[in-house]
């Protein structure tokens, strides 16, 4: 930061006492120096204070809790060291939840980004009433997740759900969506795609608008198909946006909670199906922390999730960099 150390409004008064005048000047210049050097930090301080109070401190405190046997109301029940971590890694429900989270990440988050790309590509063409369509695709995202999940849980109902009625028309037996892992994961992925595709679609669209039309026109003159143009010009051009979206949606996807929890017929009392076939990590954390009041174990799970999210986001970041670059 280089700023000249003169400020307006410091005209020297007609002072008879040069000594006093000198002292005042020294004081003022010190003040000015402080002002220039530290004021910028003060301006950004609120963020760090709030970040510290609401993010860093809870994060560290959660880590501290995870080394204890900790009851949610009564607090510390004794130091256990890495005991909770040992239990967690030997806990088959944890691995089950991890598998489900992974499956939802591939199907749900993968699906939502592909659909988002497709939506963005559609809306990037010349359409009449484009503002209407563009606003329309984010609508599912604005609707409360609870409402969306409850409606979908009804649509996917076994005996009275519309999806099963439609499948019946084409001669497929009714599917008990909640009963099996594959069907439940597909159903929950549908809800996730419904909620998020429009949101990321809009982000992609904004990026696509910035791609120079000349590139498209040149490719078209060269006889490239729409598909070819999309994959070879549009997608590589919005690479930074795709990377951002992949990382963001991974972070969100690893914490999937409301959609599968409310898809459970037992609601918030449920454990993600009769055999935990669609219980995610976040749901298991909720069960441990808020149904069994075992805060120590939930804190352990939270920390492991934090590390997992960091790792998976990193992998996805690397992957999406490679996929999108077509140099």
């Amino acid at each position, binding site marked *: 930061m280089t700023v000249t150390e003169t400020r307006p409004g410091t005209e020297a008064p007609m002072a008879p006492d040069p000594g006093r005048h000198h002292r005042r000047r020294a004081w003022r210049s010190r003040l000015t120096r402080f002002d220039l050097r530290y004021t910028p930090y003060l301006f950004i301080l609120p963020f760090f204070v709030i970040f510290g*109070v609401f993010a860093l401190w809870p994060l560290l405190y959660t880590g501290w809790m995870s080394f204890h046997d900790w009851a949610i109301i009564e607090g510390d029940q004794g130091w256990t060291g890495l005991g909770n971590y040992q239990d967690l890694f030997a806990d088959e429900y944890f691995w089950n939840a991890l598998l489900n989270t992974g499956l939802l990440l591939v199907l749900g988050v993968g699906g939502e980004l592909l659909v988002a790309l497709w939506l963005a590509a559609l809306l990037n063409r010349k359409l009449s009433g484009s503002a209407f369509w563009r606003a329309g695709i984010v609508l599912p995202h604005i609707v409360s997740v609870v409402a969306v999940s409850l409606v979908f849980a009804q649509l996917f109902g076994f005996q009275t759900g519309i999806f099963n009625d439609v499948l019946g028309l084409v001669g497929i037996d009714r599917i008990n969506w909640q009963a099996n892992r594959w069907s439940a994961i597909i159903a929950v992925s549908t809800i996730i795609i419904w909620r998020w595709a429009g949101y990321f679609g809009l982000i992609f669209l904004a990026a696509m608008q910035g791609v120079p039309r000349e590139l498209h026109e040149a490719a078209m003159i060269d006889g490239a198909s729409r598909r070819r143009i999309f994959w070879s010009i549009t997608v590589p051009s919005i690479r930074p946006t795709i990377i951002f979206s992949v990382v963001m949606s991974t972070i969100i996807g690893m914490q999937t909670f409301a959609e599968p929890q409310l898809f459970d*017929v037992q609601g918030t009392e449920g454990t993600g199906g009769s055999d935990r076939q669609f219980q995610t990590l976040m749901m298991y954390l909720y069960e441990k922390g*808020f149904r069994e009041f075992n805060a120590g174990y939930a804190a352990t799970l939270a920390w492991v999730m934090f590390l997992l999210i960091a790792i998976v986001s990193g992998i996805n970041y690397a992957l999406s960099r490679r996929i999108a670059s077509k140099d």
Partner: protein
Amino acid sequence: MKYHASQGIRVAAGAAVIALTASACGGGSSDSADGTVTLTVTTHVDYGYRDLYKEYEKSHPGVKIKEVLIEDLPKKLVTQLAANRGASDVVGLGDDIIGKFKPSNQRFLNLADHGVNNTDDPWVKWAYDYGTVDNGKYVMGMRTDLGGLGICYRTDLFKEAGLPTDPEQVSQLWPTWDKFTETGEKFRAKVKDASFTANTGDVWVGMGNQHKETFFAESDDSFIADKNTTLEQNFLTAANMSVEKVSGGYPPFSPEMANALKNGKAATAVCPAWKLDRTKEASGPENSGKWSVAAAPQGGNWGGSYLLVPKQSKHPKEAVELARWLTSSEVQKKLFLSKGYLSSHPAVYNDPEVQAKKDPYFSDAPTGKIFAEAVDSMEPIYRGTKDSDVASSFMNALLRVEQGKQKPEAAWDQAIDDAKKVAGE
């Protein structure tokens, strides 16, 4: 550096003030300048108190009541208790979850210190006792309603199956749950497009409230479900209802079940008193008079709640007074007559006016009498502190049988394994 630091503190203090103001909006009590006391009452379902609040405000000038409904109240309450702020002045907890809060009884007022006992205006003993800890010395909660246990049934479908439709005769069809299944088989032989009962989960919950001990031992709170043969028998009886297609497999409290009740796809549903209102709502006015209520096999109780006053309340005296009034026999009688919620005061459920209550929606069945009989002879039930944790292991097991994933015996074995894991055995 000094200038910097003090400014930093000021900013931090500002942020903290914002945070405190924000969290203060979450609940709790407040006073206005004119000395009015505002009491917040938070319940996990609608207790039917709205009109009563108005009445109370009228008779107690200077008291304002704020009503809050949070379905996940227990989960909110734990954090409020842990943080020692934000909890309401009066909270309502179901009898299935209060046990989970008993180890933290010190976070709630001991109502015994505020003159609550079971001699003036007494509650039925087992229900009062369950709201206390420390051998009755620490009164945590005051009982609101009881569930009782009955069976709602569709008279039109019963007629179609050639079964009696009069509540008295219907009750005699099933002195035991095995007879209930038998009746179901007879029903299914005649009626093909409707199941006999909505689901097995509700049957199981109803059964679970008929025995002294279920999952945990009264003597030392140890896990005994694996040795409890009555429990296993009950489980198999319930699970076999789905094998025999007596149960329709409409999950408890699901929209599917509501649809089934509305469309006559299930001929019976397990009905505690508080469920009558829900059944009425689910099946709609077009089914008025098609439903009736009979006694459940072996009586029993399902549900009912307690009102508790967290210690952090700023107006403990006023809060206790309000809660005492809301759970009094006077108010409970009103609630039965208007909403059908079964009173926990013998003086009320034995009251001739209550016993004579009939509801045309339920074919004028003597509901007051049926539910009173179900609860009056009840023995106290012991529930472990981890009761609500392991309950879902068994609900899931029944669901697996209904989904055709497992045979009843295998489902039981897995339920025991799951429950042991949850209970940390």
